[in-house]
Structures are given as C-alpha cells and as structure tokens.
C-alpha cells in the first residue's frame, strides 16, 4: 500500500486581484521505505508541496487535490484537528537552516526534551523529568552524537551547522515518524558535512524503514541517495521515475538540460568548454506563461505547448511533455 498518494494537487495563492496558481496539478506517491528526491529550482513550489503535506499553509493559500491519501485515509475529508493528529504522529519535517530553526534562547537539551511525547513516558510525574532527559540523550545517540553531555548544555549558536542539523533530525525522530520530509537539509553546508547528513538519513531509512522525501534544488547531489526522483519546474510536474531513468534517460527537455548543465555529471567534457544551458531565467509567480511553463525557455517548444501537457506513463517513468525525448534513446 502506498504511504502517501497525492493526485493532481493544486495550491492557489489568494490575492486581491486574481488567484495565482503556485502549484499546478502535481502528483506524488511514496511507498513505505522509499527515498524519493523532489528536485526543482527556486520557485518551483517544492517547499509549498512539503508544507501542504504537513498542512501548515495558512488562509492565504487554497489547497485542492483529486486525491490526498495517507495510508489509505483521505486527508481532505478530515477535520483540521483529526488531520493534525495523524500528521504529527506519522510525519516529521526538517528544514534548510537548522540554526535558524532552533530556539536560540534555550539549550539543546531543553528543546529535545520538549519534543519527547508524553505517551512515551510512564510512572508518576516526579519520575518523568528523568525519563525525558534519558529519552533526549537516547535521541542524540541515535543521530550519532556521542558527546551528549556537552551537546545538551549548549545553545544552538555554540554548535556547528551539521551538528544542529543532527539535532533537528533527532527532534524529528522523537515520535518515530513513518515519513521524514527533509527540505534541503544540506543547503549551505560543506561537502564533507553533507555526506555525513546524507549517510545518517540513509542509515535511518535502512534501519528503521523510514520513508524520506528529500527536497533539493540540485539534481547532482541527490542521485546517490535516492531510489526515485520527481522533478518539478515552476509549480508544474515535469518528470518522475527511478533515479537511473531520470539521470540516464531523461524524457523531458528540462531534465535533460539539468543533467547536461551539471559539470559534475559531465566529467567527459573538456574543462573550460561551454556547458549546455537553457536560455532565460525562471518565471516569477506574477508572470507565469500559459500552458507548459517551460515553454519560453524550451528548445523543443512548438505550438501545442500553449496547452499544458497530460502526464504520460511509460513503465513507471512519468513525463509531462508533448514532445518527450523518449524516442531519441
């Protein structure tokens, strides 16, 4: 059974003039124990999608979906309270800048103890303080922080970025989630630290069978860690499939350009030669092109592209393009 099954999710920003369609009919499925990458450049709506799954978007946004199932249960039909209960139990999220997300005025230990849920504790109220502390230390050990005594007493600014991210992951693990959404967990981090965090997430996925939705703007950083990848562009679904399908035989011109433009994936091209790139820049929300939003930048765009293409499925490799590159391989 699918853990998360989203079909045609649209997110509208309600503005005084006309509503802006920030995310346009995106589908996403997650199986149990799967690591899925969600790739898109800035403004592609990937963080919005994560927030919509968590249900933390405020009144300015309108979420609509044909299907929004969590383990077979339709989330759109539930009241906000019921939905909140399910989501807080099973889904956790970690953010991009761990230092900014932790409370700077309290110590790491206190913040971790806060995250430990009451159901995990037993006994009388005077025993609970100690239990909480032990649970917090256990969580730190789980994310590979051995030196818990110093860590618990420190404030966020006293730790490095990578350690803070580990603490964030520890907090996310406190309720043993089934799905962890990692919203660019390693942005602005050194490559050695990036490796550490990714390895930690991979081991959690293997040992605890936790599904991970890994959000990133960079395709090349993800490929080693994910089973499947979904690519988005400017709020529209572009392509989804296994990592090998996406990376070796991309069907969509945009994915093709992403793969070609990464200097690391193209080790064979001579140094200092020109990289393949798309002209122009990402459209802003106020001036979105009609139809396929890649249209003005796409090398293969033709007249039909003013109509948004339908998603086509080739053996689990989904692509949304009128002129997919399928036949060129």
């Amino acid at each position: 059974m699918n853990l998360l099954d989203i079909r045609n999710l649209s997110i509208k920003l309600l503005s005084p003039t006309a509503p802006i369609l920030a995310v346009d009919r995106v589908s996403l499925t997650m199986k149990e124990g799967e690591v899925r990458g969600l790739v898109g450049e800035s403004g592609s709506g990937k963080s919005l999608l994560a927030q919509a799954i968590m249900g933390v978007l405020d009144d300015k946004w309108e979420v609509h979906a044909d299907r929004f199932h969590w383990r077979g249960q339709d989330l759109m039909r539930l009241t906000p309270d019921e939905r909140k209960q399910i989501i807080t139990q099973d889904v956790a999220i970690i953010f991009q800048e761990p230092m900014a997300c932790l409370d700077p005025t309290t110590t790491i230990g206190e913040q971790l103890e806060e995250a430990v849920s009451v159901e995990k504790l037993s006994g009388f109220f005077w025993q609970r303080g100690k239990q909480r502390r032990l649970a917090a230390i256990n969580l730190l050990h789980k994310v590979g922080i051995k030196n818990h005594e110093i860590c618990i007493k420190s404030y966020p600014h006293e730790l490095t970025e990578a350690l803070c991210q580990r603490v964030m992951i520890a907090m996310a693990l406190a309720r043993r989630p089934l799905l962890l959404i990692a919203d660019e967990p390693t942005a602005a981090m050194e490559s050695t630290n990036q490796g550490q965090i990714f390895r930690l997430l991979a081991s959690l996925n293997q040992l605890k069978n936790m599904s991970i939705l890994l959000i990133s703007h960079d395709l090349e950083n993800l490929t080693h860690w994910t089973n499947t990848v979904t690519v988005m562009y400017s709020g529209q679904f572009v392509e989804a499939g296994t990592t090998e399908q996406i990376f070796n035989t991309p069907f969509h011109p945009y994915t093709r350009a992403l793969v070609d433009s990464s200097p690391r994936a193209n080790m064979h091209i001579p140094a200092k030669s020109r990289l393949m790139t798309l002209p122009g820049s990402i459209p802003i929300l106020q001036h979105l092109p009609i139809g396929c939003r890649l249209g003005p930048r796409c090398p293969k765009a033709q007249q039909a592209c003013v109509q948004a293409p339908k998603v086509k499925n080739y053996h689990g490799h989904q692509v949304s393009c009128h002129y997919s590159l399928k036949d060129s391989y």
Partner: protein
Amino acid sequence: MSSLLQVYDLSKSYHVSQNIFSRKTIVALEPVSFSLEAHQTLAIVGEIGSGKSTLAKLLVGAETPSSGKIKLNGQTLQPGNFKQRCQHIRMIFQDSATTLNPSLTIRQLLDEPLYLNTDLNETERSELITATLKKVGLLAEHMNFYPHMFSGGQKQRISLARAIILQPQIIILDEALAALDPSLRSQMINLLLDLQQQMGLGFILISHNLGIVRHFSDTMMVLCNGQMVEMGNTHELLKAPKHKYTKKLIMSQRFQLANK
C-alpha cells in the same frame, strides 16, 4: 617574464587579548606563496575556517597582511593603497542580493566606481555602463531599475558588471556560484569563461563544489586550517591527490559520482 599576480609568504594572524597582561595569537593563514597568469583560473578549496576567505580579503585589500608581499605585474601592492588596488583586483560575493545597495538604481551602482576611479565625463560613463551591461547579457534599459526588480541570476550578473567595469585584471569569486540555481549557474559559468577569453582575466575561484572547480580552473590550491596542504594542476591533483585531507575532500564528493 613576471606573472600577473605573485604572492610571497602572505600570512594573517589576529591578536586577541585575553586579559590585561596576556594576548593570544590566532593564525588565520600560514604563509602562502603562489602566482597567477592572465587567462588562468586558480581555485581555492577548503572547509569553513580553512582561511580561504581570509586569503581573498588579503588579496583584495580588505585586511592588511601580517607578513608577505603581493605583486601585480611585478609591482608591489601597498596595503592601504586602495586607489591602485581596487582598479585591478575586484571581488564578487556569494549573496549578490545583499551586496547591492537597494536604494540605488543600477546606473548609480555602476556609476560609483567609475566616478571615483576614472576621469571620464558623464556621457562617457553612461556609454561604458551600457556597454558593460550588454557584455554581461543585460539590456541598456535595465540601467534605471532597482536591484529588487531583478531575479537572483540577474543580480549576480550585475555584481559581475560592477566587477568588470573598471577593466580589472583579476576577479575574485568568493563562492559566487554556490547560491545560484543549476540552470543559471551554467549560464554564469559560460559567461565567466567567455569574459576570461575576451579580456584575459585571471580568476581566483573559491568554491567547495569540485565539479565546478574541475571544469573551471587550471590550478588548484587546497587549504586546511590556514595551511596550504597541496597545490598543483587541477586535473593532476584531482586524479592523484597526495595529502590525506585532499583525498578525504575528493572522496566526499566523488562517491556521489560512483553510480554514473
């Protein structure tokens, strides 16, 4: 023949007073020497606190070195002589959004270095600004825009325009490509490489993305805790790293390539 830029034993240490009597010395950068030719790119690789940004600040003149000499075309650069230095060595920063003054139009932003450093009159300056904007792929109409009206990639182009408008010989890119989206980043790399060929610029690229370093640079320097651990031709160094630290750094990025 002397190189474009020669650096001899450049170092930087800070003195921190602990109490009235004792002072502690923190060495940010141990003495380094290197040289850079025109049309060439030197990449500086290292972790946070390895002294790469300190080195960039020393070269651009934002900090005075504790020891050592910097020679440009055989001429010694004096610390504090900004008139001489800011024309020849320019810098681009990581976050272009915060380095552009939001209350000035692009024309005013680009006019400032020209007004302070050259004796061109107003029409000549305006012509030069138009030409420079065209060079980095923007239009002359963009002159009257404010920075907030541009996207991230365009802002980075404006900081590049500000850097090349004085016809410098060396540009220092301090993580200038890190914050850009992949498709804009490859556009920017293409643009920088074109400019290097046209103007014979020497680049000093500070980056931790080894893919870009491999593609972009000719020589490469690895810094660790303020010490230079290795320097050499980029290709040879990436192929056969000698120092343990370099190997670790390459491993941490290379294993991501394993499944290609």
